[in-house]
């Protein structure tokens, strides 16, 4: 790994200032960034740790929404969101393995937008709001394709505000070697309708399955989507699964999610 200058600011303002100094990059839990730096896919000159910023930590409820600081670890979300938003907490508790969950963070996962990561499914599936140091971004506008988001250079996610669902569940078909989702579906039921977000399947990253949302909004029952299917066009193809296999999993995992949520 190339060497770099390590900086650990205590406030968002100081982190933004540090990121403005040339070839700098933010570091959160590092569970993706550190391996990619070892592989020399990434070589920042300055690394700005976000783990010492208190205002980016923790889970707090405000009426019908749950706000989670971007530097909150998956393990903390799995524990502290369990009573307010069990579907979301259960998703956090399925990411990686225990040691990864003790370091990896919500903000890091969302900013990276890995096409097979779990969190983007929850953020898009709940219609959450991504809060940054400069603005608020709706989930529908945030994810813009594989490893691509609406974030500007130097912009930091400080938290995510999740509307709490009446019922929700994440159904993950595990790729056991990487522990990412081979395909995962987050289903969330609100008074305004049902949202369905799919990760691990599309080459374009996380997406909403509109047809299933309409069917489940009319009838929240796994049978309501039994006859639906997604096209394998632009689905991920690798040694773990063909596009057709992933397209099939989208429907199956959606049904499992609905059963778990009802």
């Amino acid at each position: 790994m190339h060497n770099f200058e390590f900086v650990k600011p205590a406030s968002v303002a100081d982190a933004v200032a540090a990121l403005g100094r040339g070839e700098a990059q933010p570091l959160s839990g590092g569970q993706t960034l550190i391996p990619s730096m070892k592989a020399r896919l990434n070589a920042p000159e300055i690394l700005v740790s976000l783990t010492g910023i208190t205002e980016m930590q923790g889970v707090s409820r405000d009426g019908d929404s749950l706000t989670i600081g971007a530097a909150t670890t998956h393990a903390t979300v799995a524990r502290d969101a369990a009573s307010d938003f069990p579907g979301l907490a259960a998703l956090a508790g399925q990411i990686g393995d225990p040691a990864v969950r003790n370091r990896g963070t919500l903000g890091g996962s969302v900013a990276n937008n890995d096409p097979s990561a779990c969190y983007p499914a929850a953020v898009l599936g709940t219609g959450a709001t991504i809060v940054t140091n400069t603005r608020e971004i709706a989930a529908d506008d945030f994810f813009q394709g594989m490893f691509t988001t609406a974030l500007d250079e130097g912009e930091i996610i400080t938290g995510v505000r999740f509307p709490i669902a009446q019922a929700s569940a994440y159904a993950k078909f595990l790729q056991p070697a990487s522990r990412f989702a081979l395909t995962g579906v987050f289903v969330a039921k609100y008074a305004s309708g049902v949202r369905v977000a799919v990760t691990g399947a599309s080459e374009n990253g996380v997406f909403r399955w509109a047809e299933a949302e309409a069917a489940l909004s009319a009838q929240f029952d796994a049978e309501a989507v039994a006859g639906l299917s997604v096209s394998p066009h632009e689905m991920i193809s690798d040694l773990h699964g063909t596009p057709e296999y992933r397209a099939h999993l989208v429907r199956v995992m959606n049904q499992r999610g609905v059963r778990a949520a009802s």
Partner: protein
Amino acid sequence: MPKVTMKVNGRAVSAETEGRTLLSGYLREGLGLTGTHVGCDTSQCGACVVLVDGQAVKSCTAFAADLEGAEVTTIEGMANPDGSLGVIQQAFQDYHGLQCGFCTPGMVMSTAALLAENPRPSEEEVRHYLEGNICRCTGYQNIVRAVMAASGQDAGALAAE
């Protein structure tokens, strides 16, 4: 180079580190605590797991500089004060929870984290918790037995894989 100070196995330590120094390197090369093993160095295998402020962490996937002031426990800190094997270590010996032994430090540290959180885990919970620790000898059956014994439970009655 900046100095990074931590408490490792109860002892205050300080070492000059580069930004890129991983916790695993800080422990092994900086402090000579070579009981922490680096297996894959890609966050997959869990051989390098140590406790940071009581939580299991892959020491190959954390920068030492990010852990200034942390309390770290490694396999060297798991023995009893008189040098005899600690409860978890003794159970791994009694139930032959190792073959080549390379993954054992990580297995023992993950077990310590599990039992701190869940003192009497079911067999299924043990297997689930240890999914980030890979034993390439595939000696899992006896590892699970050792963890059950370390938690004071019957280690004899495990389901066959």
